[in-house]
């Protein structure tokens, strides 16, 4: 049931985002808009306006490809969104109401449950993932923990 409700919420979100876009037309200037922190890179993987309306569809499409087929492209991956959009202050996309996802979603009053399961903070990477992204690498505690002499 919860999952069905999730899709209803997603649909509601699409309307809500479309609505907030209308609100940004100068004619209704003066309405408070969500304050969204700028991401780390130069630009998003898609046009900003396109992302505002369609990010949920891109993410849903990508999640099915990754989960079901093992396709691991990074362009529309949630993990990559988090890497760019994690707040400077909290290090997260949804820890406080100012953080990237939370800012808009709390403004639009649309609950999202991505973060019940997904990490809201970028992770550290293992050396084998070096070639795959533009993000700075650190040594992984996951690797360290499986090295000899520690667990016994």
């Amino acid at each position, binding site marked *: 049931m919860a*999952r069905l409700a999730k899709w209803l919420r997603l649909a509601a979100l699409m309307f809500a985002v479309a609505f907030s876009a209308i609100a940004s037309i100068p004619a209704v200037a003066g309405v408070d808009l969500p304050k969204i922190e700028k991401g780390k890179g130069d630009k998003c993987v898609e046009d900003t306006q396109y992302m505002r309306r369609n990010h949920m569809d891109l993410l849903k499409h990508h999640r099915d490809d990754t*989960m079901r087929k*093992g*396709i691991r492209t*990074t362009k529309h991956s949630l993990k990559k969104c988090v890497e760019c959009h994690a707040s400077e202050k909290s290090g997260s996309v949804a820890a406080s109401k100012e953080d990237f996802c939370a800012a808009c979603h709390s403004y639009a009053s649309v609950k999202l449950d991505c973060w019940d399961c997904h*990490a809201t903070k970028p992770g550290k990477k293992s050396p*084998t993932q070096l070639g795959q992204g533009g993000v700075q690498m650190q040594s992984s505690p996951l690797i360290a923990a*499986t090295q000899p002499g520690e*667990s016994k």
Partner: protein
Amino acid sequence: MNEHDKPNSVEAQARRDFLKTGALVAGATLAPGVLFYGVAHSRAPEEAASSDKRFGLLIDTTKCGDGCNDCVSACNTENGLTGETGPQDSQWIRKVDIKDLRTGYVQSLPMMCQHCENPPCVDVCPTGASMKRADGIVLVDRHTCIGCRYCMMACPYKARSFVHEPLTDQNPEVPRGKGCVESCTFCVQRVDRDEQPACVEACNTQGHNAMIFGDLKDPESALNKALKAASSIEVRADLALNTGVRYQGI
């Protein structure tokens, strides 16, 4: 797919064999329209998992130390499990002690999702969340899991756990959360970048070498060579699930 790529043609078989041995050649054109990406990366990120492979695991219980928990700790670290073993805690891999009551001989072996070819968990799942990937890895799609736990009842190996409480600080590569069922994924996030599951890596780096992970469909894989060289069994072979995990020494 044209006529020549049909799996039943002898030529295609020969080509596949050649592709396997040639998989380390970077960027070489091996056949019209077939190009390999990068060194030692058998699958490009945009390429889907394929049924040309079936991942499996062989566990030699005679090398498995009594009281050794290295595979379990490695799994817990990789997948963000607490390591607690209470009735409501997630355990993706457990050490199980078995004793021959007649002789008193005790063995200790790791037990986890056996990645069945005919998985009962998938059969009973009402939503399609329990699924088998093309390469044989059995997974739960948490996006569609409703937490009914039918699969937990159906699994003969007690391999699955239910997450009872909200979680935070998950490993970004291993999303998990309250209300969903979960189990061993063969560390699919690692397998997809050509690494071994965390348990296998730990077992080998600690020098036990009790586990061999690999492709059951590749006759040249270390796994298949080991399977060919000595007798091994499926646990509960009577259920005819054709498990991907096999054991030696029990």
